[in-house]
């Protein structure tokens, strides 16, 4: 049990310290940071609605291919504050990889830990 806790702690520490991948930085975070779009809030919103990485990925992919307010799960107020996203000029594989990197970066599993 103790061994397990140590392993979890170690993994979660690594996750906390990890930096965004160049792909994520370039295709997602750069723009998000500039426009002050709270990436983590978006992630939490998707997580609360879709629960699994696969389901989130599928929905995000569908939205990013055709970004419209109606396709988004974000509230209307969100679009009053932040501009409506334009379609990304990325091929399908690269888009999927970028979404994967985004989901991995904020992944809840790697952030959770048990207080000793």
């Amino acid at each position, binding site marked *: 049990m103790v061994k397990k806790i140590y392993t979890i702690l170690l993994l979660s520490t690594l996750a906390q310290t990890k930096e965004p991948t160049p792909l994520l930085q370039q295709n997602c975070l750069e723009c998000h940071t500039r426009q002050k779009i709270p990436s983590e809030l978006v992630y*939490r919103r998707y*997580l*609360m609605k879709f*629960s699994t990485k696969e389901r989130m990925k599928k929905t995000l992919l569908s939205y990013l291919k055709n970004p419209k307010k109606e396709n988004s799960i974000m509230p209307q107020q969100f679009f009053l504050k932040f501009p409506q996203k334009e379609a990304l000029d990325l091929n399908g594989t690269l888009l999927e990889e970028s979404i994967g990197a985004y989901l991995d970066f904020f992944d*809840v*599993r790697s952030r959770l830990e048990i*207080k000793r």
Partner: protein
Amino acid sequence: MRLLNIQVIDLLSSEKRSLVRFLAIYLSSTLILFSLGSYMFYTFQKHQIIDNQNAKLQLEAEKLTQKLRELHETYKKPLLYPHDPSSDSAIYDVDRGYIFGTFKPKKIDWSKEFYKKEEKLYYLHSLNPYYLGASSLLVSKDFNPKPLNELVKMLLLFLVGAGVLFTLLGLFLGRLFTAPMRESMELMNRFIEDTTHELNTPISTILTNIELLDTIYNCEGQKEMRRIEMASKTLSRLYEDLTFLKLNHNYHRALESVNISTLLEERIEFFHTLIEAKEIKIIKNLHPHITLEMDRNDAIRLLDNLLSNAIKYNHKSGKLEVTLTTNRLVVQNDGDGIKKEDISLIQNRFRRANSSEGGFGIGLDIIGQVVTRYGFTFTIDSDTNQPTKVTLKW
């Protein structure tokens, strides 16, 4: 003066059997009823105990859900998973994939909200919305067996207490039901006691005077005299038997080496008038000097009753065979025989297989009592229209 002051009432074996059967049925039905009731109570209480512990788990899950919600809203690093040291918990996504937790059970029963497995209680709590991506929260706690053990102890104590109480009640009821029977037996015994007491003096007088008439006077009516002697001896023997039955439990026995061979000759001689009257042919095969360690009066009652029955229930001009060996005495007669099914019944007091002859039906009961007292064995081989063979082994 009364012959006896102490009344000893013996229940017949069939009556004892009935009493035992009544008690067995009464106690077993009571036991079944109580066991069933206790089992139902146990099952109900067990569910109550488990429900109470499940309710605590449910409360724990509600608290955890609240903390998960707070954690999801803040999402501050590090995300410290909320947990209580007294319980284990884990969160699962909508596809039942493990997210995080203090434990990771190998197999989860997703079909039940509450379940118990290997002395652990589990509660599966559904979450919506999915805070931290969790669709289900599994909370587990060790089942606390203490209340259940207390319940089992209490039920066992109750069953033992009820068992003792109802056994006593059964005995009391049994005695209550047999009271009229015991009263009847007591009345009959008292009647016999009074009758025998009143018979003693006239019988003794008749027998003494017959002997006197025989010795002193040359009486002309010899045949009539023999009949009077025979009738008087029958009465005398009946008196002795009844006295034996009444005194059996309180009589002080003097054990001595009784020469059965000689005594048997004497008792056959005692019955010679009866034997002659029925023209019975007696065949004696008596091994000499056979001795038994017993009370002389008991030996006389035993032999008299064996011989008396063999003579009484013999055909006129029948055969009476008396065989004495080192370890047995066999008396066989040529009577009408006894039905096989009646053999066990006639050993009860006041029972007779054939009422054509006089008597109270106490002979075999006396034989049975003597046989039991000295550890002998006693068998009757007979059937309708077959010779009756009585074997006494020691």
